[in-house]
Each structure stands twice: as structure tokens, then as C-alpha cells.
């Protein structure tokens, strides 16, 4: 009798772990589909998205996305932003600010290398993924991927994906204390057979200024960073809550030069900007936490809860004295496409000629 109970319990445990693993894999597969840059259909949608400057209010944005990856976003509301257009054709992202008669041109985010397998492996390390039936959103049936963090403080993330296309229709995050934050939500969506190419053109008014920005350049070491920006950035050897460094870059926008440290736990992004402040007051940047260390200002930007942002930021201050050049070089964390950490010489090889010229030999 006891043996039978033991066997039954064992079978149940095996079944439960298989189901869990199955949920993990299915969740991961669904997320892979929704994180892709192209979908099998043309999409026209109206979404609501948190307005970073709106104190909890939402922006209403029209999204037109072609099968080939071209995207146009037009802000409909609030009125102070209405009419702002953004077109990403896979090569360039152009943002037209009609009130300012300005066009901002920068490289398309689609040109940035990302490795979904690498990202999802990290997500699976840090989250338990499960799939549940979703509600109807904008008239569409959905499945919901629930990502429950293993670390405390991070919120449960619920990705509601269109059942047929995998297109993300809603993202909600439990912020703790009962607060559920909707990052974005879809109010209307359709899948037109064709989208006119004119949709992805912007015709600015005469007299519009065009401002071009270059893409952030990858930095291979702290010394490399110092040559680029004039100071050695702060780089901890490890990060809390399963976060890893994705890349270190130099942001060459305008007159403001900063080192950009990109962190991720697979699903959430956090960016730490580091620069030498000129003595001015800290500017107000939404969803950010800031501190100064050894004359370097660190600004962490992420939609994480404020206390989690601070925990992450504290990793930079608590470990800064231990960071030496060889360690710093090894913790750059630039992973190759197979997910292995690259040795310095391999990192250098993986960059283009301009980066190699700067890299430490």
C-alpha cells in the first residue's frame, strides 16, 4: 500500500514537473514569436500606452506594421503630442515632430543585433513561464504568457498575445501592493490584405530641419570607454536579481556623451547612463533613478519598480572599488551568438574595423 502511494506521488511529481517544463517551453516559444521583428500579416492597430510624462495617463497611438517589418506610429493623443509620426523602414527610424518642424533620423532599431535564443534562455533562468487562456482583446482571442519572476521585488508579467498571429496585444505587470500596471493595451486591430507603401513615407512641411544621430558604438573595455568619453565607467562584477550586462556602448548623441550599460534579465530592460555632470541640476527623466559616484553620474532607466531600480543601481556603488581592468574586461558580458562568453580577442574580432582600431590588443 505504502509502495503504491509512493509510486503515485512520484508519478504526480513527474507529471507536474513535465507540465511545468512544457509550460516553460510553450511560453518561451510564444514569446519568441511575439518578440520577432516580423509577423506574417499586415497590422493596423490603435493602442494605448503609458505616457511617460503623463502621470499615469495613456497615449493613444496608431500602429501600422507591414509584413516586411516596416512600422509607422502616429500619436493621436494626448494633444500635446498629437501628430508626431515615426517611421521605421528597417534601415532608418525617422521621427517627425511637426510642432518643432524637425525630423530626427537615426539607425533603425532593427539593425541592432539581438539573439532571441540567448534572451529567452536568460528569461527561463529568471522566470517561471506558464501559458493560460487569455481574455478577448479588441475582438481577438488571446493566449496569455505569465512570467513569474524567481527574484523577489520584480513583478509578474502577463503577455497577452493574439492567438493566431502571436502579435502582442497587452502587457501588464504586477507592481506589488496590488497595483497592476498596463504597459500597453490594444483597443482596435485589423489585418489588412495590403498596406500602401505611402503609409511608410513622411512628407515634412517645408523648412523642416533634419537632425541625424549615429548609432551607439560598442565599447570593449573600460579603457576603451575612457578614450571615448574621458572617464572610466563604473562596472560591477555581478548584478542582483538575475540581471546580466548585455552590452556597453558609447552614446554619441549631440553634445552629451555618455557610457551606456545595457542590462537585462531576459524580459526586462534596464539602461544605466554614465556621464560627467557639468554641475547642473539632475534633469527630470521618467522612470529613472539617479546617483553620483566619484564624480560620475549614474542614471538607471527602466519600467521596474523604483525600489528595484535602486537595488540594481546600488550594485554599481557597492562593487565599484573591486573593479579592476582585467575583471572589467572579462565582465563586459558580450556573448556570441551561441550564448558563450567571448574572450577579449574574440570580442575584438567580432567588431568592425572602426571598433577594432580602438580595441585593446
Amino acid at each position, binding site marked *: 500500500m505504502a509502495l503504491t502511494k509512493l509510486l503515485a506521488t512520484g508519478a504526480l511529481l513527474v507529471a507536474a514537473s513535465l507540465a511545468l517544463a512544457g509550460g516553460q517551453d510553450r511560453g518561451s516559444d510564444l514569446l519568441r514569436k511575439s518578440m520577432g521583428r516580423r509577423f506574417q500579416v499586415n497590422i493596423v492597430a490603435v493602442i494605448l500606452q503609458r505616457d511617460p510624462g503623463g502621470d499615469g495617463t495613456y497615449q493613444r497611438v496608431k500602429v501600422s506594421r507591414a509584413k516586411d517589418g516596416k512600422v509607422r506610429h502616429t500619436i493621436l493623443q494626448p494633444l500635446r503630442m498629437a501628430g508626431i509620426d515615426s517611421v521605421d523602414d528597417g534601415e532608418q527610424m525617422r521621427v517627425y515632430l511637426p510642432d518643432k518642424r524637425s525630423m530626427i533620423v537615426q539607425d533603425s532599431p532593427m539593425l541592432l543585433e539581438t539573439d532571441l535564443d540567448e534572451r529567452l534562455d536568460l528569461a527561463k533562468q529568471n522566470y517561471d513561464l506558464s501559458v493560460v487562456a487569455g481574455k478577448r482583446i479588441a475582438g481577438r482571442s488571446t493566449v496569455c504568457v505569465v512570467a513569474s519572476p524567481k527574484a523577489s521585488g520584480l513583478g509578474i508579467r502577463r*503577455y497577452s498575445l493574439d492567438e493566431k498571429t502571436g502579435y502582442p496585444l497587452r502587457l501588464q505587470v504586477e507592481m506589488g501592493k496590488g497595483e497592476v500596471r498596463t504597459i500597453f493595451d490594444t483597443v482596435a486591430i485589423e489585418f489588412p490584405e495590403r498596406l500602401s507603401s505611402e503609409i511608410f513615407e513622411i512628407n515634412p512641411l517645408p523648412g523642416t530641419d533634419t537632425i541625424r544621430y549615429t548609432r551607439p558604438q560598442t565599447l570593449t573595455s573600460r579603457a576603451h570607454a575612457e578614450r571615448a568619453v574621458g572617464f572610466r565607467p563604473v562596472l560591477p562584477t555581478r548584478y542582483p536579481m538575475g540581471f546580466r550586462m548585455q552590452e556597453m556602448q558609447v552614446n554619441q548623441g549631440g553634445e*552629451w556623451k555618455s557610457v551606456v550599460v545595457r542590462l537585462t534579465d531576459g524580459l526586462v530592460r534596464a539602461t544605466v547612463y554614465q556621464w560627467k555632470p557639468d554641475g547642473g541640476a539632475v534633469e527630470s527623466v521618467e522612470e529613472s533613478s539617479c546617483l553620483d559616484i566619484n564624480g560620475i553620474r549614474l542614471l538607471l532607466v527602466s519600467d521596474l519598480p523604483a525600489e528595484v531600480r535602486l537595488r540594481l543601481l546600488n550594485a554599481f556603488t557597492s562593487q565599484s572599488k573591486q573593479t579592476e581592468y582585467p575583471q572589467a574586461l572579462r565582465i563586459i558580458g558580450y556573448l556570441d551568438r551561441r550564448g558563450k562568453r567571448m574572450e577579449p580577442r574574440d570580442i575584438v574580432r567580432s567588431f568592425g574595423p572602426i571598433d577594432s582600431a580602438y580595441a585593446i590588443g
Partner: protein
Amino acid sequence: MNCKSVQVRLSAYVDRELTGTEMLAVRAHLSVCELCRIEEEGLREIKQILTATPIPEPPADFADRLVAAMRAEVQPEPVRPRFRLSNLGYVGIAAFSMAATYMVITLVQPRPTPNSATARKDQSSGVAFEVQRDQAMMVGTDATGGVPIISASNYGAH
């Protein structure tokens, strides 16, 4: 009180038309919210400009010339000339009012000057804009992060 509810009351706040409790709530919010404070300053400036701008006076013979010009275009009717003249007078006054209103609106349109609220906001937000621009690039790498947005509100420092 949040930004949305403050901004719908700002005009009344500047004109001192709110109740005491509302005035205090708006004032408290303005003391901690830069965005709304800039909005309030901009609104005050526009109101000051509107109040300070003199209403342009039309030339003394403007009404006479307008009526005369209209008379010339209208075929004279054989009967009831007095009544027709009266109608034309009304039309003239209406046209004059419209023209004057148009002139006032045109003259008092706020123009971008270094002292305008927008310019002030731009000059102090270079980093905020750069961060937003960079974040837009990262958000744009896949569709699960939402929509990459660069707002005009903090652009202009370059």
C-alpha cells in the same frame, strides 16, 4: 490631484476662478511637478500677451468705405430703399466685427521667442531628450516593449 486634473483647471487657476480647496490642491501639485509648472507659466505668458496687446483701431473711414464698397456690388432695388440700407448696415457691422476679430487674433498669436515656455523647457532638457531617443531605439527592437515614442516636449536643445 494628478497632472491631467491640474491641467484642465490651469486656466481657471491662473484667472483665480477656482475654489479655495482647488486652488490649494493645484498649487501643491505645481510645487512638485515641473511639467505642469511650465504649462502654467506658458499659460500666464499667453494671457499676459493677450491682455497687453492693444486692440487695433481701424481707420476712421473704414466703416464708410466698407459699406460703400458693398453697396456698389449690390443691385439697387426699386422699392423700400430705406429698409435695404438698414440691412446693408447690419451686414457692414458684422463684416467689420469679423475683420476686427481676425486682426486681433492674428496680432496676438504667440510667437516662438527665447522667453516662451517651450524654449525654456527645451534648454533644460538635453539629457532627458537624449535618454528618450536612446530608449526609443531599444523599445523598437521588438513589439513586446510597446511603441517607441519620442515626444516633442523635451526636444530642441540641439
